[in-house]
């Protein structure tokens, strides 16, 4: 199994469906430490103490909303408006089997990074809630009215209902770079907004931080994958000065070839995809 596939399987192992207690599915969550999961505040109605149930492959986990940023009563969104930033909720698990925990990045991802999000939606038959993944490209950042919260903007992927709370994996570093919270248009591939992992790490309480670090010290599978991907990165990426960067429009083919430049630092627009060809013509990023 390639490192990327391993990272994707680890992402799947830490991702769960979030249901209202004895109620319908509400969205997605992911484990961040033993006994803790993260989701979007609007998924749980911004309500502290709300009982919920998480459902995943090994079973289910009853829990409750331990904290919300911001709580619903601290600035309820107007109808049709996105939830106030940052739109995060911490779930405390009351019981259930052992689970994987996400390895969160502590730095901003590179512009143009290829990522995937894994969430739970009703897209197979309109009724059944199933897990699905979607690939995106990091296209920029979005400042919010909260000066401490700048969101990441994704493009070139469709963020459908149920993806709120989905972890977003950088497929070149193997780290979770944030949590998907808002679609930029559910009917097209315009992308999504993401709460960056560095902000999640800044907000989570010490118990969660310690639990996350301890988990990855005892179970180093995710860290080993990350290390392997970091080792391989310089080998597969050609020198910037000799690489070919092709840029194509969303709804079209490749239209321009630019030689040279450091692609990682390019800030590209929502409707533009960029990728660098590997010397053998297979890898993309």
């Amino acid at each position, binding site marked *: 199994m390639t490192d990327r596939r391993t990272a994707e399987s680890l992402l799947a192992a830490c991702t769960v469906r979030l249901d*209202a207690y004895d*109620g*319908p*599915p*509400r*969205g997605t969550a992911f484990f961040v430490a033993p006994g803790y999961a993260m989701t*979007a505040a*609007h*998924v749980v109605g911004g309500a502290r103490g709300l009982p919920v149930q998480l459902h995943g492959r090994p079973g289910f986990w009853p829990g409750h909303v331990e904290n919300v940023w911001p709580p619903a009563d601290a600035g309820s969104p107007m109808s*049709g408006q*996105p*939830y106030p930033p940052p*739109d995060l909720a911490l779930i405390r698990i009351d019981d259930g089997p052992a689970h994987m925990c996400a390895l969160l990045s502590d730095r901003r991802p590179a512009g143009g990074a290829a990522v995937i999000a894994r969430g*739970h*939606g*009703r897209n197979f038959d*309109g*009724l059944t*809630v199933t897990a699905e993944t979607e690939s995106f490209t990091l296209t920029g950042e979005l400042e919010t009215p909260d000066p401490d919260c700048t969101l990441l903007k994704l493009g070139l992927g469709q*963020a*459908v*209902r*149920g*993806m*709120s*709370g989905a972890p977003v994996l950088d497929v070149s570093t193997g780290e979770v770079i944030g949590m*998907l*919270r*808002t*679609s*930029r*248009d*559910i*009917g*097209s591939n315009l992308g*999504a*907004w993401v709460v960056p992992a560095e902000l999640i790490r800044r907000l989570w309480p010490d118990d969660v931080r310690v639990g996350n670090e301890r988990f990855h010290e005892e179970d180093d599978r995710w860290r080993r994958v990350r290390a392997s991907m970091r080792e391989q990165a310089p080998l597969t990426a050609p020198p910037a000065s000799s690489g070919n960067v092709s840029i194509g429009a969303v709804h079209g083919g490749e239209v321009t070839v630019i030689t040279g430049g450091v692609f990682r630092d390019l800030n590209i627009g929502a409707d533009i995809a960029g990728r660098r060809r590997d010397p053998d013509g297979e890898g993309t990023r």
Partner: protein
Amino acid sequence: MTTAQIVQVTLPSGDLVWVRMESPGPGRDSERGIQDVALGEAAAVVHAGLLPGFTESVRGVVTSVQHALEQVRPDVMTVEFGIEITARTGKVLSVLAESGGTAHIRVTASWNPGSGPAPRPVAGGEG
């Protein structure tokens, strides 16, 4: 553009009926653009086969027509109307179906031979 699906719902009486439920398509302004993407609770309730508010809507219409006709006391009364089930975030609405901006209620009243419409009471007779 809207998309429609047929879903089975359970009436409060326990009877099962099939309902055509329309979902706004990508062309609908209210569904376009920036929006949080939790799973809609309202749609889930309908998908689960429940119709909260259905009983109240039907009872309200029938009772209103009954009150309107109680002074003429028909032997048979038929009321036809449509109900539109609208799933929106946070709640399920059931409203009288509209056609051209007007809600339609077709009322048919009939009397058995010999019974005839009841005479109108004299207005202000209580004085």
